[in-house]
């Protein structure tokens, strides 16, 4: 049996610092919102001419006065991702097409064009925030119904930890936040909850089974009993996610990366956050006594 409970304090400190650092980044560095949430235009180009590179493309586009424009390679040398704020210039894509054909010859394939107006992006951001909030609240309520409030609190703190630290890491690394990241965060919420619930379920069962063991020891027993399941499920989920990350194409990279972070944090938080909250709230056999009739 691994003595997870020996390090409860240390890991709690680490978690608190991680959350504080993440919040610091979120507040001061902010998130790198993609056009979904900021508005603007995105163009994915493939060039047939090997000689065309990011700087020649950027120089050319800069002459068009499109404002702050970003040009990057996308996955490989011949694919480019162009992003700029589009201030109501409706025919800009056609203009870019004409301009590029004129300058580089008919060498470009416009693989993807996305244009999101300011009104829509504001709405998407709002609905993303609402979706995550609703998810957190629903989880809170669900656990409250299934367990006691102490469990609910533990689970929700673990969730906040996972979401904040994942977003903090995205802020630190400057990775783009788009609609699929919101989907990833929501799935992380579901996954982390899933992990936490399995351990909580065992804690509750053990509370009934051992009437004389204190929660500090009991939580450790429960973690150990469910440990191999926690690890195996995390591994298979990570295998699936790594496969998406490496083989699923550029578009799914951000999504799978967010999920990978989330699964790692989620697994960690079920062990070191959700449980320590139970310990700190001094959950005991008495806590679940009244709820026994419920099941």
């Amino acid at each position, binding site marked *: 049996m691994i003595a997870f409970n020996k390090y409860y304090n240390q890991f709690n400190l680490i978690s608190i610092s991680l959350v504080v650092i993440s919040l610091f980044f979120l507040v001061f560095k902010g998130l790198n919102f993609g056009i979904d949430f900021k508005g603007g235009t995105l163009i994915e180009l493939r060039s047939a001419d090997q000689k065309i590179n990011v700087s020649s493309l950027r120089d050319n586009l800069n002459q068009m006065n499109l404002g702050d424009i970003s040009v990057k390679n996308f996955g490989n040398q011949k694919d480019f991702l162009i992003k700029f704020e589009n201030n109501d210039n409706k025919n800009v894509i056609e203009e870019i097409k004409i301009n590029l054909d004129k300058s580089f010859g008919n060498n470009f394939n416009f693989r993807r*064009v996305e244009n999101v107006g300011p009104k829509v992006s504001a709405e998407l951001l709002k609905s993303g925030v609402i979706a995550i909030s609703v998810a957190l609240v629903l989880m809170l309520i669900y656990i409250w119904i299934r367990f006691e409030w102490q469990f609910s609190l533990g689970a929700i703190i673990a969730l906040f930890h996972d979401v904040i630290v994942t977003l903090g890491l995205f802020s630190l690394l400057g990775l783009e936040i788009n609609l699929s990241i919101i989907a990833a965060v929501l799935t992380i919420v579901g996954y982390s909850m899933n992990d936490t619930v399995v351990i909580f379920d065992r804690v509750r069962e053990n509370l009934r089974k051992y009437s004389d063991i204190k929660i500090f020891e009991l939580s450790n027993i429960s973690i150990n009993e469910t440990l191999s399941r926690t690890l195996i*499920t995390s591994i298979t989920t990570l295998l699936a996610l790594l496969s998406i990350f490496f083989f699923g194409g550029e578009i*799914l990279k951000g999504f799978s990366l967010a999920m990978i972070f989330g699964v790692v944090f989620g697994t960690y938080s079920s062990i070191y956050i959700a449980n320590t909250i139970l310990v700190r709230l001094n959950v005991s056999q008495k806590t679940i006594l009244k709820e026994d009739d419920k099941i």
Partner: protein
Amino acid sequence: MLYFSKLRIIFISLISLLFILFASSNLFKFSNELLDKKINLGLDLQGGSYLLLEIDNTPVIEQKLQNLSITLKNYFKEKNVRISNLKFKDQKLSFSVNDEFKNLVLEEFSDEESDINPYYQRFKSHQLDVVEENNVFTINYSKQGIIEIKTSSQDQALEIVRRRIDEIGTNEPNILKRGNDRILVELPGLDDPMRIKSLLGKTANLTFRFVTNDTEDSFGAEKLQYEESSEESMVSKRIILSGDNLLDAQPRMNNESNETVVSFTLDRVGAKRFGKATSTGIGKQLAIVLDGKIISAPIIRDTIASGSGQISGGFTFQSATDLALLLRSGALPAPLNIIEERTVGPDLGQDSINAGMIALFIGFILVILFIFIKYKVFGLITNIALIVNLFLLIGVLTIFEATLTLPGIAGIILTVGMAVDANVLIFERIKEELRNEKNNLIAFDSGYTKSRTAILDANITTLLAAIILFFMGSGPIKGFSLTLGVGIFTTLFSVYFIARLLTVLYVSKNREKEGLI
């Protein structure tokens, strides 16, 4: 937990086979209509354009208020109520009345049977908001009145948008209402939406009006620019003909001038008016105005009584074709703005499908190998259940002809990764039970029973997340929540029926064996 009746075994096998059949109908063509269903590919996989249009209702509301001012004038005249200072300013209509009429006017507006201010019983609201202050009435549309206007202009716009898109002939367009002032257009297989965008961006409000030098024209006049140059002309506000009077419009080659023109045919009323105008107006210039710009302003040389004519204006064949199309399909009630556009080319779509399939295949193999190494025989059972699960998932999506998107494929891969969780929970539990219980059957039975609440809780939480995503997300993301959510149900089926059935069969044959798992 460990007993399966013959009937149930047959039932489970039949269901599994049925879904495998449905799943495979994506690969083969079935002659049977019931079976011949396919998963739809989302725009991000098959390529295509997604356009979100917003109707700019401000001019419509303005126009309605202006029309209302005439109605009001006549209405109160009939009732012998004198109103003065009727004006339209800041999106509001205002007028003043003398003290004696004040209450009468107020009554007219607040009467639930009122003709001038209809009352919507259902919403408990009048069409207009009326404010009176010092005998000055200010009138504006109420919230409900505006909703009414928006809904009706959305209905009209939807119809026109549909006609325009149908005229171009793209395959299976999807045109839907969103809210009360938006229209969503999905155009599968279209990789260059430029033409459609420019066609949808035009209101196509066509009018025939005389060019006038008389600024005192009784209908008023306005200065309008030419489409092709920066020249301007004064044009009367009196409308001789509008696009509503057109029966047909076609691009034509004019043999005399060797130029592309748009020829049009008028309805009976239009032909009559056109004949009258051209007979009285010989020598005058008739401006053809489209969306506030003059296309051309030919001089009338003869009376045109045939009810048909030509519009010239330096068109290319393409622009003449587009104009004819716009005129045929009619004018939009209000301008449309494209507020969101997402276009994916067909080759990127195919690349995404390929990448998604490779990722699914590799992810699947990795998970299967890992589980097999970890659990041997039971790993095999889990893996068989996992394969059936995949077929079930694809089968369900096929039956409902659901839309598969790239994030949707990610959802399937993720389901593969997470689906083993339930079996892992069960097997780990059985292992624990076996430590204290020597009887295999009892240990397996209690393993299944005791792990049930944890499995249920764990899946419900994921399902909650998927449901929220389904209702909040759009397009591709909806596809993700769909596969994730459906995946939970197919997983539970495959775990509790397929895997459990196989486990039962294996364990009952090896009930005496030690170290079974």
